[in-house]
């Protein structure tokens, strides 16, 4: 049990998928201008990443490795993620319209979110077992959400500040992300 807690902490804080592993930075900058969109994106990622992590792990272990087709991993993973996103979208639209309205436009964007694909690849590369893969996927997603929501909070404040002209928009956002990343960097000695 202790191992799983440790794995979760290291995935959320120390190896934070956004700020330490640099995965999923496009939605990180793209959807963090408003708190609402950041929360929507974070929820959608938690939802999809856990499912994708589990399904790709199962496929990789029982199909690709058994048949010796590891070189097809990239193609299989991206197809699984793309169809999973589509499927989740249709399923939610039909059965849980309230959640669909909330996640709505963020779902299709997740296909090209490298955090999802990256986490799946990390799970496989680190040779996690099933429970570890599940915990790691969930923790990566939580870490993504945490960093995104924190960042959105900071960015909402920046809107009110007077920023020098060349630094405006993406530029100041990146510098802010650097400072946020510095705070996460401090967790490095923890485990």
């Amino acid at each position, binding site marked *: 049990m202790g191992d799983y807690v440790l794995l979760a902490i290291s995935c959320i804080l120390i190896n934070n998928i956004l700020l330490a592993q*640099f995965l999923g930075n496009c939605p990180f900058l793209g959807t963090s201008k408003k708190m609402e969109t950041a929360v929507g994106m974070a929820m959608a990622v938690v939802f999809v990443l856990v499912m994708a992590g589990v399904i790709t792990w199962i496929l990789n272990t029982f199909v690709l490795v058994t048949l010796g087709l590891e070189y097809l991993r990239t193609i299989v993973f991206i197809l699984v993620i793309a169809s999973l996103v589509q499927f989740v979208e249709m399923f939610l639209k039909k059965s849980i319209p309230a959640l669909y309205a909330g996640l709505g436009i963020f779902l299709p964007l997740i296909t090209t979110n490298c955090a999802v694909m*990256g986490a799946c690849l990390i799970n496989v590369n680190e040779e996690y077992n099933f429970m570890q893969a599940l915990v790691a996927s969930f923790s990566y997603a939580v870490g993504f959400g945490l960093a995104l929501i924190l960042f959105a909070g900071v960015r909402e404040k920046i809107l009110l500040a007077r920023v020098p002209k060349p630094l405006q928009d993406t530029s100041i956002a990146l510098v802010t992300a650097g400072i946020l990343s510095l705070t*996460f960097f401090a967790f490095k000695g923890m485990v």
Partner: protein
Amino acid sequence: MAKSIAQEFTKGLWEEIPPFRLVLGLCPVLAVTKTVENGIGMGLATTFVLVCSNILVSSLRKIIPGKVRIACFIIIIATFVTVVELVMQAFTYPLFLKLGIFIPLIVVNCIVLGRSEAFAFKNGIVRSLADGLGIGIGFTLALASLGAVRELFGNGTLTIWETPIQIFGPSFQPFTFMVEAPGAFVCLGLMLCLMNLVGSK
């Protein structure tokens, strides 16, 4: 078409240079630019995928049905990424290890998909080739320059191919912040600021 083929090529080098003008595909930019060598390697791998997928998408643009085009693009891109992955594993193994999961992640690089969708699907083969090559080289330049700044200040060296070259003398105190994760964000942010400053004049 107002633009000549040469212009399609050169626009990738300044006007629309990713990731500075088109803020897309940031993940590899931030993650692999610890050294110049990694930056160039990543840039060239992306260029190859970009050029090949642009050519194939553009030559198949009359056959691919509009509704499922994104899925088709992804399969085309994923195929070329697998090719790059296998080639790099065979010939440049140390670089392959350093770039790690960022090679398979070229699949989800928004630049590649973005060019297929925004350009190759609407234009002819030669034009798409020029566009892919221009954007790819622009991307490589951006990665290499960011890598150079980070490596120079973070390590005091420049690595063009395999062996690091000492630039500052042995008494140089490395500014390790630059090669760590936070430095990547700050450095890219400041370079963007510099680009804005130069571009606005």
